[in-house]
């Protein structure tokens, strides 16, 4: 199943190219312009956000594919006849989604690692671990949404809402202290906040252990939610 999901991603290399183009627009247009408006260090501060947003888009593609398998391609019943237990099936879909997300963001992660001066250091592995752990949660969320969304509009709406939450109610663009006190807990529990903090720790040559261990919490919770929803969904 994991191999199949990765093959689906590679069956359309154009799609990976477009995702990289998306990342480039975010980094070299938006982040660069804000760097000019606010200061050069600001560009480096928000740069990983471009890659994590691409990871988020790639992760949501997994949920969208599952939704399409059921409602458009009518493939779900065939897949469920395969000799795999439901639990392994759910686990494979999530793992496949994470692998796809890491592959789709591979060039972006390298670009950010280059900007942070860790491209040729063992810390490059940490950068990929951050992307993978972050993607785990988003893949879980997207699969949970795909299990309950009866129309593509509902799926797209929830996806937009999640993307808004992850992008604007996190520390991608501004420090948590700038938010009103009432919103700060929402920002501090946002997985994007901790993925950003982990990347920033890489930039400052600090330890990523703490932000990654905090990030694992919501990521595992969302992955579990995705797996449970998928198991419910496979009961048809």
């Amino acid at each position, binding site marked *: 199943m994991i191999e199949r999901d990765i093959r689906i991603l590679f069956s359309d290399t*154009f*799609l990976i190219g477009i*995702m990289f183009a*998306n990342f480039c627009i975010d980094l*070299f*247009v938006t982040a660069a312009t804000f760097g000019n408006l*606010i200061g050069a260090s600001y560009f480096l501060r928000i740069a990983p956000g471009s890659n994590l947003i691409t990871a988020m888009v790639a992760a949501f593609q997994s949920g969208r594919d599952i939704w399409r398998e059921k409602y458009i391609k009518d493939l779900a019943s065939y897949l469920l006849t395969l000799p795999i237990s439901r639990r392994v099936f759910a686990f494979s879909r999530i793992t496949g989604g994470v692998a796809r997300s890491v592959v789709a963001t591979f060039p972006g992660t390298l670009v950010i690692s280059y900007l942070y001066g860790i491209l040729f250091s063992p810390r490059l592995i940490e950068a990929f671990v951050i992307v993978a752990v972050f993607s785990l949660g988003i893949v879980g969320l997207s699969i949970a949404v795909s299990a309950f969304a009866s129309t593509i509009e509902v799926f*797209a709406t929830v996806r937009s809402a999640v993307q808004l939450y992850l992008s604007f*109610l996190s520390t991608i663009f501004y420090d948590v202290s700038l938010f009103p006190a009432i919103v700060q807990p929402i920002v501090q529990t946002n997985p994007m906040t901790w993925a950003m903090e982990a990347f920033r720790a890489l930039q400052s040559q600090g330890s990523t252990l703490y932000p990654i261990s905090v990030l694992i919490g919501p990521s595992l919770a969302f992955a579990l939610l995705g797996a449970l929803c998928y198991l419910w969904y496979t009961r048809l």
Partner: protein
Amino acid sequence: MARRDIATLFRTPWIIISRALAFIIQLFVFAYLISGLVVKFPGFFPYYAVGSVVSVVASISFIIGYDIFEEAEEGLLDYLLTLPIPRREFIIGRALGGAIRAMIYTIPMFALVAVLENFSNPLSLIAAVLDLFLLAFGVTGLSITVAVSVRSANRFDVVLALLELAVSRASTALYPLAFMPSYVAAIAPFSPVTFAADSTRAALYGLSLDLTGLVGLLAFVAIFLGLGATFYFRRLEGGVYA
């Protein structure tokens, strides 16, 4: 056809809710917080507020492409083609419906920004609405062109999202030209969203007409409405795009 497209958007309140939510968060969270950090460009919030309305118009106008793509995929297009409407009216109706519904949807956001920024001159407001309508009409044509040219659903989804991102970001809608990196500043003046944003700001702040922006917008409408109509027509009647 136009009436049907307008009704379609309002039958899917999810889209309206998500885009409205995006606009509110973008304006009252992102623009508000980031304008506190932008010290090199005083008045970033009002600049961003007008630009975000222009971006929303472009974004909503792209939705017609999703509708057309889905209709073809779900087989609804075959039914629509049996209706007693000439093909040309059918295509113009789609474009017009897409543009009008984008305007209906954006007007409350435009009103919110007008109240926030104290825009009260009726002529300026009318000129700004006209600019926004021209942008909506042109983007609808662009969206139809992409919808009938791309075959894969995944590709279509990502291509349209990328186009939406590119025309909005590489424009002066959200960021001033002087602060863009040189490679973006070189192309941004030719973006249709730039034409609309500059023209709308000239009408609202300068109480004047930005002729370059207006001519650019009219050219954009003519080109992409023509292309969209040609591609759509060919797809409906067979040929290279069928």
